[in-house]
């Protein structure tokens, strides 16, 4: 890159150090000259020169790519949300009556082999009906419009069963404008005869436009906390890493600088040359980083994490953020280099590290995290509804607390290692080395410690607020795999349908239940009574029955809550009306029936979905006749295998009976989807950061080994077993990492507690994740040690003696 400046700078360099005492422009020129010379060294310093530059470039590049992705993520998520909003009809203008521009629409989400498929039923009532985004026209009856990913699924052998369910003619492919991500599974099914909502009773709506007015939502305080913390915890280690990456090969560079001093460069000049070298490395890193980012962007479309995918085009960093990265990274490279050389005197005959740095002082090191704590503590309890955090205060507080680790770690390590001695030779070698170079060891671990501490705090905050996001559904997957709620427009007979479902392979049972409401008068005046109708076997799912035969009736005690809500009670022999007892629709008449004289009281038990039913339980022969679509019809499906073909066939049967049917897969707990996305994002982010830092650890480890090649060879010569050398390398990394992880655990838990207080969540420390995360950090170290063993063994050969 500097070839153009070479002829100009080389003679200028020869004019010697006297040149930099000039005026402003002169000084600038001197700076430029020296930086350019350094840059030239970076690229022309022979094989070793450019491999080191490449190493720095790749390291910085990875960091830059991670930075760019992080800065692009918010806009990518915003773009997703925007398109999701654009096709939503929540809050769309509705019409009372059919018109030229009205569209009947209903959601019919499906699930297939554990995948969620978004489904929308549409029926245009006039030529001007609004067209959903991404479509060219509203699908006509029997027609299907599917997303590309769904089309692929339907065309694949894997999707054969789904094709049976979505058997319409595929006439359109949903365009990108109508999708949140490239891997989204979505269909629009054209229908006829949809019944629009009357007094909010049906899921079908009549709309005139797709327009969702999005209120600029203020992020909840806890969410702000999470977002800020995630960014600080992920980006801080990246910054630490970039700082380490520009120091790759530092020792060798220092030696070359000494040679430059010998031929007449002054100490300021060599510093500038060193900065120029770092600058060149970081510029190479920027270019590589941009390349990595483009690469990541192009492959991101193929990724599908938990059914969430991102369009490459959405992953666009904000220009000012990208510009900031482009300026900050080289500036940081120069800054870090100059800072690192501050304790180094480069003499013509070699590099002198300022002998014995002053004993590390504790007070200012403690000040950093304490300042962070001071910023955070006043915010305690604000996470309650309506509270608000000052974003900058939170950011600064968290950042200071985490940076505090990097301040305390060298001190702690020095204290700890300073007192160590005894133990086997490998231990002694490692400890002594650490005593001499505490700072270097701490620098390596800083990044990992910060990342782990941040991740622990995040993890705690997550588990603290987990209760808000994870609900105990009360469902019992052991009793039924799927609960099908038949759409109210279904014409089929419930029992018939249940028998059909029960006949599928792998299905062990299908229990149909009807429930309707009944009242003493129609329209109801004195409260409603729940009526559950089913065979004895079905009724046993909702109540504890000693004996039961067709013709029996029971009164379930249920829970007091429900009885109070509806208020109605029934006595033996009462004449009741069932079905349309509220008088919504005049066309359907309530159905009269008589409560049998025998009406034993029985205790309710929760049905498979967890509902505790009360009211009348009737066997078919004493039940009221067809209630004309009023009430609900439900089938509990039991299966051998929760992801077998039988269940998919059952879902298909339900969809065929009515596309408005819902087939709910029963699960013990339900976790909010958004919450798990953040958690997954955190996991991947933390992993990426740790891998990155592990890479830098490995590079500096190998670098250090190369420096000590001759020593290693002579140690092997006089009979040091290789295992001793390997162990000493292990101790040498394990010790600082152990200290770093301990500190990270303390800080992470501390920060976590503070954050939970702030979020007003109950403080509870779950040691599992703490152990897991510190374990991952330790694992990275173990991996790095393992990977540095082959070069160690290669270098600890007598060939090293020959080079002298």
């Amino acid at each position, binding site marked *: 890159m500097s070839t153009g400046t070479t002829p100009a700078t080389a003679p200028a360099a020869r004019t010697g150090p006297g040149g930099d005492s000039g005026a402003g422009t002169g000084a600038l020129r001197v700076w430029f000259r020296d930086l350019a010379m350094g840059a030239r060294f970076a690229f022309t310093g022979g094989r070793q020169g450019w491999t080191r530059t490449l190493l720095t470039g790749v390291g910085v590049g990875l960091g830059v790519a991670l930075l760019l992705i992080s800065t692009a993520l918010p806009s990518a998520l915003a773009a997703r949300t925007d398109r999701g909003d654009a096709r939503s009809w929540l809050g769309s203008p509705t019409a009372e009556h059919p018109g030229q521009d009205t569209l009947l629409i209903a959601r019919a989400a499906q699930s297939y082999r554990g995948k969620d498929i978004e489904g929308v039923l549409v029926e245009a009532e006039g030529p001007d009906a609004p067209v959903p985004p991404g479509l060219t026209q509203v699908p006509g009856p029997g027609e299907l419009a599917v997303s590309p990913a769904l089309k692929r699924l339907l065309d694949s052998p894997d999707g054969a069963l789904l094709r049976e369910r979505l058997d319409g003619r595929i006439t359109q492919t949903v365009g990108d404008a109508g999708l949140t991500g490239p891997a989204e599974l979505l269909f629009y099914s054209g229908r006829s005869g949809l019944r629009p909502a009357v007094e909010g009773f049906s899921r079908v709506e009549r709309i005139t436009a797709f327009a969702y007015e999005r209120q600029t939502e203020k992020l909840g305080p806890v969410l702000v906390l999470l977002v800020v913390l995630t960014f600080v915890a992920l980006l801080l280690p990246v910054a630490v890493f970039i700082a380490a990456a520009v120091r790759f090969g530092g020792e060798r560079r220092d030696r070359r600088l000494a040679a430059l001093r010998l031929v007449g460069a002054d100490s300021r000049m060599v510093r500038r040359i060193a900065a120029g070298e770092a600058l060149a490395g970081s510029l190479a890193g920027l270019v590589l980083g941009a390349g990595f980012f483009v690469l990541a962007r192009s492959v991101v479309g193929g990724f599908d994490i938990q059914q969430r995918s991102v369009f490459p085009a959405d992953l666009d960093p904000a220009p000012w953020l990208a510009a900031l990265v482009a300026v900050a990274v080289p500036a940081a490279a120069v800054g870090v280099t100059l800072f690192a050389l501050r304790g180094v005197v480069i003499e013509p005959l070699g590099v002198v590290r300022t002998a014995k740095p002053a004993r590390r002082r504790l007070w200012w090191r403690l000040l950093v995290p304490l300042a962070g704590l001071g910023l955070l503590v006043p915010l305690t309890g604000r996470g309650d509804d309506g509270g608000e955090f000052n974003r900058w205060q939170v950011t600064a507080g968290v950042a200071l607390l985490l940076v505090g680790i990097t301040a305390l770690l060298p001190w702690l390590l020095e204290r700890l290692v300073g007192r160590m001695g005894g133990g086997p030779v490998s231990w002694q070698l490692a400890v*002594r080395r650490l005593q001499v170079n505490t700072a270097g060891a701490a620098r390596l671990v800083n990044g990992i410690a910060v990342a782990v501490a941040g991740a622990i705090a995040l993890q705690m905050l997550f588990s603290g607020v987990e209760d808000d996001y994870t609900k105990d559904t009360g469902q019992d997957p052991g009793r039924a795999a799927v609960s099908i709620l038949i759409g109210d427009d279904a014409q089929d007979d419930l029992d018939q349908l249940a028998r059909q479902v029960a006949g599928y392979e792998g299905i062990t049972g299908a229990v149909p239940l009807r429930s309707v409401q009944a009242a003493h008068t129609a329209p109801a005046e004195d409260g409603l009574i729940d009526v559950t109708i089913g065979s004895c076997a079905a009724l046993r799912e909702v109540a504890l029955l000693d004996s039961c035969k067709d013709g029996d009736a029971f009164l379930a005690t249920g829970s007091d809550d429900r009885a109070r809500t509806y208020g109605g009670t029934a006595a033996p022999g009462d004449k009741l009306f069932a079905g349309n007892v509220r008088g919504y629709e005049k066309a359907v008449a309530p159905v009269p029936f008589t409560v049998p004289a025998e009406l034993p009281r029985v205790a309710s038990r929760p049905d498979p979905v967890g509902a505790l039913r009360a009211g009348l339980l009737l066997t078919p022969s004493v039940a009221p006749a067809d209630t004309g679509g009023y009430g609900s019809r439900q089938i509990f499906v039991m299966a051998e295998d929760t992801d077998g073909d039988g269940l998919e066939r059952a879902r298909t049967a339900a969809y065929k009976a009515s596309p408005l049917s819902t087939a709910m897969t029963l699960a013990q707990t339900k976790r909010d989807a958004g919450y798990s996305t953040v958690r997954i994002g955190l996991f991947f982010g933390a992993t990426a950061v740790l891998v990155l830092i592990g890479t830098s650890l490995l590079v500096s480890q190998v670098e250090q080994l190369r420096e000590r090649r*001759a*020593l290693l060879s*002579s140690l092997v*010569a*006089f*009979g040091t077993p290789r295992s001793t050398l390997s162990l000493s390398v292990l101790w040498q990394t394990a010790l600082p990492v152990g200290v770093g992880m301990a500190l990270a655990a303390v800080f992470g838990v501390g920060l976590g507690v503070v954050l939970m207080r702030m979020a007003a969540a109950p403080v509870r420390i779950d040691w599992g994740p703490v152990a897991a995360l510190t374990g991952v950090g330790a694992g990275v170290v173990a991996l790095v040690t393992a990977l540095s063993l082959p070069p160690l063994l290669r270098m600890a050969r*007598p060939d090293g*003696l020959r080079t002298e």
Partner: protein
Amino acid sequence: MTHAPAGSLLAATGLHKAYGPTKALDGADFSVHPGEVVAVMGPSGSGKSTLLHCLAGIVPPDSGSVTYAGRELTAMSDAERSALRRTEFGFVFQFGQLVPELTCVENVALPLRLAGVRRKEAEHTALAWMEKLQVEDLAGQRPGEVSGGQGQRVAVARSLVTGPRVLFADEPTGALDSLNGELVMQLLTEAARSTNAAVVLVTHETRVAAWSDREIVVRDGRSRDMERAI
């Protein structure tokens, strides 16, 4: 010249060793008796150091045999040779041999510790040897804080601390001035003679070689025993 002379402690015959296309040794012979100091001389690049590495079992030769006390080195495993180097041999190199982070006494004690001697005991023995080499005052200092001559004497102390039967010295005075070189050689040969150890001394300096009892010359990978040639 092709058979090990009777009574020799360490002997090699017909050693060949090539590093890539470069023939470092091309049929070299060698022998040393207990208590004998043999100088290995020759121009640089002649294969002196390679000969020493082969004799010490650091590098296996491509062909030829090395026998130490009747045992064939080339037939031993790497672990066995390492153990031999640890217990029977001592080494002094030109530089780069002291662990910079360890104190001098820890450096001297290192071979004993590797052989399993307890730390206190090892450092006690180490101090005794440092006294013999007149560097006991440096016990607590790090190699970076002592002069080249002192460091080299520390290295000699380390090479002798296990009471080796063969001491290998590769240009032990190469980085030293005359006075320090003299001192190191005097102390080294005296210490070796007092323990009846054999010394293999690789050097290109005749004044250093003058401390030996006998010299062999290595040229183009072949050895020449001057005593027997004349």
